[in-house]
């Protein structure tokens, strides 16, 4: 392995994968209960804020944003991107094994491709090292800005 992620960093990536898809599902389930919101029924947005599905969806999406930004603080954008795409796989598998929906061959093919993509990227380095980043302190000390 060319990169060494700490166990806590793997946990953050797993959180990125799970929170976005589960949060979206909870939100759409909650909004389906609340009903269609349009300009005549804007007060429904206020009602939605008290729906337990909407509340838990919002909490999970805040968790997604926090873990996504944490991941970006130590990994490349192109390294984290497949992890967010893995959310689609989680969604499809949830609908198959939790809601017992039928998955077509196309969707199984899509799942396989995204899993492969995660495998490709996970096998490589997590971060591009820029040599100038290591000298930033020295440059600040000498006062030679660019």
């Amino acid at each position, binding site marked *: 392995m060319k990169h060494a992620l700490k166990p806590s960093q793997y946990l953050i990536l797993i959180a990125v994968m799970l929170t976005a898809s589960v949060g979206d599902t909870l939100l759409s389930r909650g909004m389906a209960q609340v009903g269609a919101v349009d300009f005549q029924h804007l007060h429904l947005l206020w009602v939605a804020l008290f729906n337990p599905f909407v509340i838990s969806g919002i909490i999970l999406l805040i968790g997604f944003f926090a873990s996504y930004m944490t991941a970006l*603080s130590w990994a*490349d954008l*192109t390294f984290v*991107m497949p992890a967010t795409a893995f959310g689609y796989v989680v969604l499809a598998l949830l609908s198959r094994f939790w809601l017992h929906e039928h998955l077509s061959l196309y*969707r199984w093919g899509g799942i396989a491709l995204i899993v492969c993509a995660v495998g*490709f990227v996970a096998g490589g380095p997590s971060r*591009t090292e820029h040599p100038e980043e290591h000298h930033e302190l020295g440059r600040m000390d000498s006062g030679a800005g660019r």
Partner: protein
Amino acid sequence: MTTASALRTWSAIGGVAALAILGEVLIAAAMRRLGDLDHLRTKPGMLGYLGPIRAILSSPVFLIGAFCMAFNFFAMLYVLSIVDLSLAAPAIASLTYIGNAIAAKLFLGENVDRRRWLAVLFVCIGVILISH
């Protein structure tokens, strides 16, 4: 689909994808500049997270990126009112993936090697198949 409505559909999809790319690249640039958030923690425990949160919120690059993402959210709602979800969702997702990879290489200086390009291609086809 007439030429005019196809043009409107695809410019709406392209616009939303461009906003998403701009937002993600700005946020990624801000986070890269801040570095590992663990090092910004002021003390152990929950209160220690105030350090990273303050650092993130005082980064103008992050704030502009977050504004783009919020604007992207509302633009997405508009697109969904004129384009079918089954076309808009995979089209926007794939365009955003490709655009992110190109922008990460050009503007963030990331080393997008062959395996990452392959991953982008696989994710795009995978997303299209899953929403089929």
